[in-house]
């Protein structure tokens, strides 16, 4: 609840900060300060919450899980602001508005992690989505950006329509929007409810860009201003997954019901993994590769969604953190480069060793190499799926895909270390390097002691 | 099947539509007469006594004028525009309570066409459609003046609709109902709403002017800038429909204001007269019409008194003044009502 309130207010503050403060550097500082306040407010709720969870007006349920996830989302955004905040100026004039929109997205994410009725789920998804349409089109000078925006908008609102139809059908079948009540009545499932669940699964797959509903993702991520792609592909996507996992684990449980959607989602997961990984192999642009990699990573997070056990919740938290931080880091480095293709990274190790070594750590994390956070993230989601028992075929697929993912992730490392070339970068100041090192340190710390995060659940 | 009910409604609908048209026709006459009086000249005086047949002559002329549809216009939309404007104008009268109930041969007959519980929403919904008539007409004409006028009109109408809606909310907080009939009946004992909602009424009044494209907000028809505005390309009865629609809207606005703020068909001391209810009802209807005619006169009075706004002034008035004022009015009303209900 605190996270929701503080992020929403922060958004308003940023809106007005732009009117009152002319200096863009100062706007960034204000954004970081209010974000820190939101972060603190979120954690402060932990002390008042006690052991259990608290429901507000039957609409929002705050739990340790939600607070932890919000902390991760806010923390990742903090890293994002610190690393890439100054890149906002390159996109356009309205820096404060971009910050405000990001805060509103965060409000949506905090709602996604706390909703307890389908109404709030819908609102959360929309509050997350609509600012993104605008961020995608923020670069008004380039036609690619506005096209990305339009594409995203049309696809996004289309999936919203499908989501709503799903919700309406479920309501028609059960007579309630309340997640807990839905779970209670899940025994008596009828066709109407099943159609609703399928539609909701489709719509949410759309939002988290799972195959075969992923086709908008590469174009949109490629066309959007890079700095916003970085946010959209990470924190926002994690928010989508939280909504996904909370609704499917919270509401659609029951022996028969779970089996019904589990198979559907398992197929979606397998498709996502295969398509995401295999297509990423053929990309020449790192930005596009990361877009496909985000699809591939979505496949892994879906593993958590279809597994109904504690590993899944732990895994999604860890995955959200590991994936977001690492990807934000890579994007932050990429923004500093002149050329976004793999060749643009050639020889980075010689010209900018700090950037190269931190990027290597981020890439290893994405590939799931031990001692980075990504390893335990993958570990937990795999463990969740293995524990599910009947999904071993999916686990094997996932593992093979993970091996393939090493192929394209390591192309970045190969380019940086083993290829000849002089990677051209912008001027890089010490503060940026320091932030990168801190971020990489976080990745490694989580890679050695994942318990640091998990103990809060 | 209750045929009497249907017959009764048919009679009522025909009556209301006829009266609307007649009032609209004579409003044109009234307008010119009022202009004449204000500007110290005669006004129409040739056709009939005091020019009373002038509206009929004008109407007849419109029927027999040549119908011109410009070559590069969109034919279908060109016809649809005025038709829509007219239909919308005719539809708003459906929920206005024209009077209390009459008892004829043991049957209770309501002088309201449809007493629905969301009357105000209905009016808002239907009135919002009115802007389409203007938009379509202006766009279909494919004329730069028309297009500009229709866009202006649309912007103006939607801008003032906000303040209008907000000002009504304060009223609704007091009445607690969306049914026009109930709102009117509540004023029977408690006094007219205008006493409690003077600011709300003022905002509503100003917004009504803007909604009806009346001076000082008649920028959509500003002859000096736009050669007559959105209906520049229209002729014959299609032009007539636009003009009629405007006057009918004025009529309905007046009726609405009278009903919402001035007690509708109520007149002072009506309960203490002790006459036959039917007579009281008829007197009530007459009272309503007197109020309506007063507002119509007021519309005309303003037209010939106040000059036209500039467009930026108009928008600033709407957004920067009317909306905050209406919000403040709403909040103050809310606080007052709650304070009083708790004090009791």
């Amino acid at each position, binding site marked *: 609840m605190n996270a929701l309130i503080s992020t929403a207010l922060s958004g308003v503050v940023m809106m007005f900060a732009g009117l009152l403060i002319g200096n863009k550097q100062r706007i960034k500082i204000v954004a970081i300060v209010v974000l820190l306040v939101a972060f603190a407010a979120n954690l402060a709720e932990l002390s008042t919450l006690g052991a259990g969870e608290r429901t507000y007006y039957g609409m929002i349920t705050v739990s340790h899980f939600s607070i932890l996830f919000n902390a991760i989302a806010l923390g990742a955004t903090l890293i994002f602001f610190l690393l890439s905040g100054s890149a906002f100026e390159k996109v356009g004039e309205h820096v404060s508005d971009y910050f405000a929109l990001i805060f509103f997205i965060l409000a949506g994410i905090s709602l996604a992690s706390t909703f307890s009725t389908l*109404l709030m789920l*819908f*609102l959360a998804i*929309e509050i997350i989505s*609509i600012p993104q*349409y*605008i961020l995608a*089109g923020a670069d*008004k000078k380039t*036609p*690619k950006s*506005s*096209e*990305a*925006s*339009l*594409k995203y*908008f*049309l696809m996004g*609102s*289309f999936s*919203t*329509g*499908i989501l*709503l*139809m799903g*919700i*309406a*059908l479920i*309501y*028609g079948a059960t*007579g*309630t*929007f309340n997640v807990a009540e839905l779970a209670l009545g899940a025994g008596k499932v009828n066709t109407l409810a099943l159609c609703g669940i399928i539609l909701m699964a489709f719509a949410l797959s759309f939002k988290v860009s799972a195959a075969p509903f992923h086709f908008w993702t590469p*174009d949109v991520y*490629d*066309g959007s201003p890079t700095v916003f792609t970085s946010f959209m592909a990470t924190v926002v996507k994690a928010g989508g997954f939280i909504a996904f996992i909370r609704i499917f684990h919270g509401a659609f449980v029951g022996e028969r019901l779970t089996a019904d959607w589990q198979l559907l989602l398992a197929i979606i997961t397998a498709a996502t993994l295969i398509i995401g990984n295999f297509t990423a192999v053929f990309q020449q642009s790192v930005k596009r590769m990361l877009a496909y990699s985000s699809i591939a990573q979505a496949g892994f997070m879906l593993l958590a969604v279809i597994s109904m056990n504690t590993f899944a919740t732990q895994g999604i938290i860890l995955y959200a953190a590991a994936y977001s931080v690492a990807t934000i880091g890579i994007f932050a480095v990429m923004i500093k480069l002149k050329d976004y293709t793999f060749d643009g990274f050639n020889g980075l190790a010689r010209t900018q060793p700090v950037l190269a070594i931190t990027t290597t750590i981020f890439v290893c994390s994405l590939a799931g190499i031990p001692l980075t956070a990504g390893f335990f993230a993958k570990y937990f989601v795999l463990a969740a799926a293995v524990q599910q028992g009947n999904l071993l075929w999916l686990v094997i697929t996932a593992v093979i895909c993970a091996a393939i993912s090493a192929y394209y992730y390591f192309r970045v490392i190969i380019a940086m270390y083993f290829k000849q070339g002089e990677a051209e970068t912008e001027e890089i100041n010490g503060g940026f390097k320091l932030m990168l090192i801190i971020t990489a340190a976080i990745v490694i710390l989580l890679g050695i002691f994942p318990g640091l995060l998990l103990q809060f659940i | 099947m209750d045929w009497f009910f249907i017959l009764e409604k048919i009679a009522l609908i025909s009556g209301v539509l006829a009266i609307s048209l007649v009032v609209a026709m004579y409003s044109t006459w009234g307008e010119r007469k009022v202009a004449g009086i204000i500007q110290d000249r005669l006004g129409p005086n040739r056709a009939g006594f005091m020019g009373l047949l002038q509206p009929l002559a004008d109407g007849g002329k419109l029927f027999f004028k040549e119908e011109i549809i410009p070559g590069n216009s969109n034919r279908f939309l060109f016809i649809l525009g005025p038709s829509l404007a007219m239909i919308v104008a005719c539809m708003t009268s459906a929920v206005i309570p024209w009077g209390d109930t009459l008892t004829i041969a043991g049957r209770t007959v309501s002088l309201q066409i449809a007493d629905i519980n969301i009357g105000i929403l209905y009016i808002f919904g239907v009135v919002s459609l009115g802007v389409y008539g203007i938009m379509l007409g202006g766009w279909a004409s494919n004329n730069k003046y028309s297009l500009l006028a229709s866009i202006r009109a649309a912007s103006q109408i939607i801008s003032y609709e906000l303040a209008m809606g907000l000002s009504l909310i304060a009223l609704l907080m007091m009445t607690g109902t969306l049914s026009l009939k109930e709102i009117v009946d509540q004023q029977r004992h408690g006094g007219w709403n205008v006493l409690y909602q003077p600011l709300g009424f003022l905002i509503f009044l100003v917004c009504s002017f803007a909604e009806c494209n009346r001076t000082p907000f008649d920028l959509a028809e500003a002859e000096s800038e736009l050669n007559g505005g959105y209906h520049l390309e229209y002729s014959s009865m299609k032009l007539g429909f636009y003009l009629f629609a405007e006057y009918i809207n004025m009529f309905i606005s007046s009726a609405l204001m009278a009903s919402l703020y001035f007690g509708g068909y109520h007149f002072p001391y009506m309960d203490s007269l002790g006459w036959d209810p039917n007579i009281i009802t008829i007197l009530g209807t007459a009272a309503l019409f007197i109020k309506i005619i007063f507002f119509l006169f007021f519309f005309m009075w303003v037209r010939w008194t106040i000059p036209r706004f500039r467009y930026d002034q108009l928008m600033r008035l709407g957004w920067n003044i009317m909306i905050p004022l209406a919000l403040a009015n709403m909040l103050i009303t809310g606080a007052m009502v709650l304070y009083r209900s708790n004090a009791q």
Partner: protein
Amino acid sequence: MPVQYYIFLSIVLFCIGVMGVLMRRNAIIIFMCIELMLNAVNLLLVAFSKMWADAGRVDAGGAQIFVFFIMVVAAAEVAAGLAIIVMIYRNSQSVDINIMNRLKN
């Protein structure tokens, strides 16, 4: 009227909307089709609300509140969407989504 009629109507409307989105090329029309989908859902929700209210559920009004929220969100989407479409139109003088394949490699 039985609730099935409403369900049928809104499903038909919804399907028209979906087909429109999938088949039309004009961004505005796609957009309108999406609105049609949303309104089909609104209709369905109201119908279900009535159905459950008749069945004795006291909280059935919640579905109508849901409709309000859908309207509001749809309005927000309209605001964002129209702005985007205007921007596109000013850039390319067209709202045909077929010409927008610059992003395809």
